């Protein structure tokens, strides 16, 4: 069963002069095991959307269901793991171990089971077991973010919801997180991420949801996102769009530098053939 949003609208400061509409008539389905990117400008309503998933916010109209459950139920909360932009906003224990175990103990797991799951989680984010006794605040940005991921994964969620998980990290930190997320997805957990970083995420995304001024402006595969000429685009895709605009018969569905290289070489051979035929 998926996460389903039906005709969801949400406003902040409802019934006051400061009322601002954040989301309007959102219909969305997130299936188990997929990798979804939520794109859009600041203030478009992306973060509001993620907070609706786990019941932190309640929709004004419409319904949100997680595997058929109300998202504010404890069981629904367990199925959704959330990690926000700054891991430092949620870490507070003295050791990495306590940090990861925190959620498990909250959900009433036994000591033995907790230990088992902490080791499982730390392996999933490829942190070394020796790190378990360290102070989370002595870690690098990328490592801290992986601890935050591990503390969410320890609950064995079906969906991992992330809000700008790599913003503010340096290139190696970004790479660590992207690789970790890729592995998490391959193991069957759905990953839903709000992001600005198309260069990093585009090779991983299976489906894209574009939000503009509180409404869903596009929803579909990344191939159709590119074919329909949606924006924003990572630099490589943007370059292919420019080539197409100049009349070149290139495929727009290009996600990595390797794809682009292949496509340009193909273009060269096509044009070469045409030229020799003339």
């Amino acid at each position: 069963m998926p996460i389903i949003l039906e005709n969801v609208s949400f406003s902040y400061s409802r019934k006051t002069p400061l009322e601002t509409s954040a989301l309007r008539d959102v219909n969305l389905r997130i299936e188990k095991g997929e990798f979804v990117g939520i794109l859009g400008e600041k203030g478009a309503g992306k973060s509001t959307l993620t907070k609706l998933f786990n019941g932190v916010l309640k929709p004004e109209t419409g319904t949100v269901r997680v595997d058929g459950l109300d998202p504010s139920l404890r069981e629904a909360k367990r199925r959704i793991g959330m990690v926000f932009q700054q891991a430092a906003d949620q870490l507070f224990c003295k050791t990495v171990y306590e940090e990861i175990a925190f959620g498990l103990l909250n959900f009433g797991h036994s000591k033995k089971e907790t230990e088992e799951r902490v080791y499982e989680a730390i392996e999933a984010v490829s942190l070394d077991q020796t790190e378990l006794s360290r102070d989370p605040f002595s870690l690098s940005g990328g490592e801290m973010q992986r601890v935050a991921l591990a503390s969410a994964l320890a609950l064995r969620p079906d969906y991992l919801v992330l809000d700008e998980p790599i913003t503010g990290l340096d290139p190696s930190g970004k790479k660590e997180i992207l690789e970790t997320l890729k592995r998490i997805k391959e193991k069957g957990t759905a990953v839903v991420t709000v992001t600005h970083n198309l260069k990093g995420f585009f090779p991983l995304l299976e489906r894209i949801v574009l939000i503009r001024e509180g409404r869903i402006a596009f929803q579909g595969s990344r191939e159709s996102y590119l074919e329909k000429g949606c924006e924003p685009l990572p630099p490589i895709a943007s370059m292919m769009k420019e080539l197409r605009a100049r009349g070149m018969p290139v495929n727009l569905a290009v996600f990595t530098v390797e794809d682009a290289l292949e496509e340009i070489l193909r273009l060269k051979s096509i044009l070469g053939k045409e030229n020799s035929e003339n």
Partner: protein
Amino acid sequence: MQEPVFSYVPGASLLHKLDPRTKIAAVMLLGVLTFRIDNFAGIVALFVFFFALALLSGLPMKVFFRAVRPMMLFIFFIFLTQLFFTDGRALASYWVLKPSLEGLEKGFKLAARFILLLLFAALLTASTDPSAITCGIERMLRPLPLRWLGVSSFELATMMNISIAFLPLLFERVERTKAAQAARGIDFVKNPFHSVPALAIPLLRGVIRDAEELALAMESRGYQGSRRTSIHELSMQKSDWKALFILALFIILVLVL
């Protein structure tokens, strides 16, 4: 989020144009007056004066009532204690509670005073930009020997301004951490002791980091906590002196009543 109580509502009325110092002084004087007078005529006069000023400000009345509403319960409580715990001619008798006529009178007066105080304060904040208020306070404090307390009036004013600017950021931080910890299965209602450190520690760390960044940004822009000037030009106009004169007349009138 709550409705903004005591917030500034921009406008171009005579009241908006007065020097903040005039308005601060007026509110202080009226506040003292409210608690000095002891007859109903005076209280009525003060209410009339308030409505006259409110009309002059050109702002909708709900702006002012909004300031009173959250305090209504408290005011009602004060009214009740006065009503029941003042000795005098009994109005009626319910079990041990004996509301008295004197109590009723005292209760009405005290409640009216609190309401007046809130209304005048709302008049000041609604018609004056908050930073103009801090600037006015700074100017009024400048002659005082605050240096003995280890602060300057400039520092006080900057502190007030920064707190106003920084409060929303703090609320945002609380929201963010709360959402993150709620996702880790924390129940803030059921388990308050357990959840306090989970909220407080990241919050404190975050606030300290924010404060450090802010301090650096302020320092780089030349802030030294010493003398500084202000973009707001404060100058007492003819209309300010007129306003203070009218206020003086009014105060005398009320005292005579």
